[in-house]
């Protein structure tokens, strides 16, 4: 195979890989609003840790972020830090972390394929949105503030 052809192939490969990465960056972390009421049963899974709340599992008054992670997720600690920053000024919202490393049953039950995956719950423990991958924080903030005033349009048609 000539050098020119090989150069073309390799260049195309690098460009294609770059495109894949760019598309992935655009798509990941979108806040996907749920259209149907879906409750998140905390007691049912019996697992979780309320961060910054010594009493263990507790839901936020108006909103809760449930962060699913595993020990093999490099970016999960950073996402957790980012969420804690968001919540620092929002005392009516809390963060719950669920480690799925040894809980494949939960991953299957909640259809979780990647980490981090975030569920955003409203004040009644209904799932308002799902986020796959590192979140688009601005969209998360918007949703949180909507939930604070109970104005989430998660149930609109």
């Amino acid at each position, binding site marked *: 195979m000539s050098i020119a052809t090989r150069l073309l*192939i390799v260049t195309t490969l690098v460009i294609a890989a770059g495109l894949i990465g760019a598309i992935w960056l655009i798509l990941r972390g979108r806040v996907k609003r749920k259209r149907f009421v879906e409750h998140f049963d905390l007691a049912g899974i019996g697992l979780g840790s309320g961060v910054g709340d010594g009493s263990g599992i507790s839901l936020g008054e108006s909103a809760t972020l449930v962060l699913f992670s595993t*020990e093999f997720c*490099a970016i999960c600690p950073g996402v957790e830090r980012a969420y804690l920053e968001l919540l620092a000024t929002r005392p009516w919202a809390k963060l719950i972390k669920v480690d799925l490393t040894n809980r494949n049953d939960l991953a299957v039950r909640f259809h979780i394929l990647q980490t981090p995956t975030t569920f955003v719950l409203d004040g009644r423990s209904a799932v308002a949105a799902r986020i796959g991958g590192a979140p688009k924080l601005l969209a998360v903030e918007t949703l949180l503030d909507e939930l604070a005033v109970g104005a989430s349009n998660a149930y609109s048609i």
Partner: protein
Amino acid sequence: MPTTKKPEIDPRGPRFGATITSVLLLIVIWLSLDSTSLQAALVLFEVLAFLFALGAILGTSRTPYAWIFRKVIRPRLKPPTYLEDSKPPQFAQGVGLFVTLVGLTLYFGGISSGILFAATAAFIAAFLNSAFNLCLGCQLYLLLKRLSSRG
């Protein structure tokens, strides 16, 4: 149940390793596209398989990339703002090892283009990690667990 992991390594180390790996894999691809350099591609590919094995079994800190990073790169950088757990990069090395072993198996099984395909797959993963910080463990771990639990 809180998980107690001690963050251990400078996260820029594995990304440096991924960058070097990407370049080496690109060279493998280049060499494997022409039959006269296929042997050279094989040798380099085997070296990469060995490096993946080192990282997967001993941890990423014990690879030549990590050594170069510590001795040459990191002294020129500001200290890391945070440390990361060593498990996710180690998982990624394991995936790399698996892919390269598949390529070598295909090659020695008579399918000489096995190296080209495996190197392409590995290149895409390494490149996405190096350029876009894509975390393989994030995307693959749960899927693998699901597959293995059904088997």
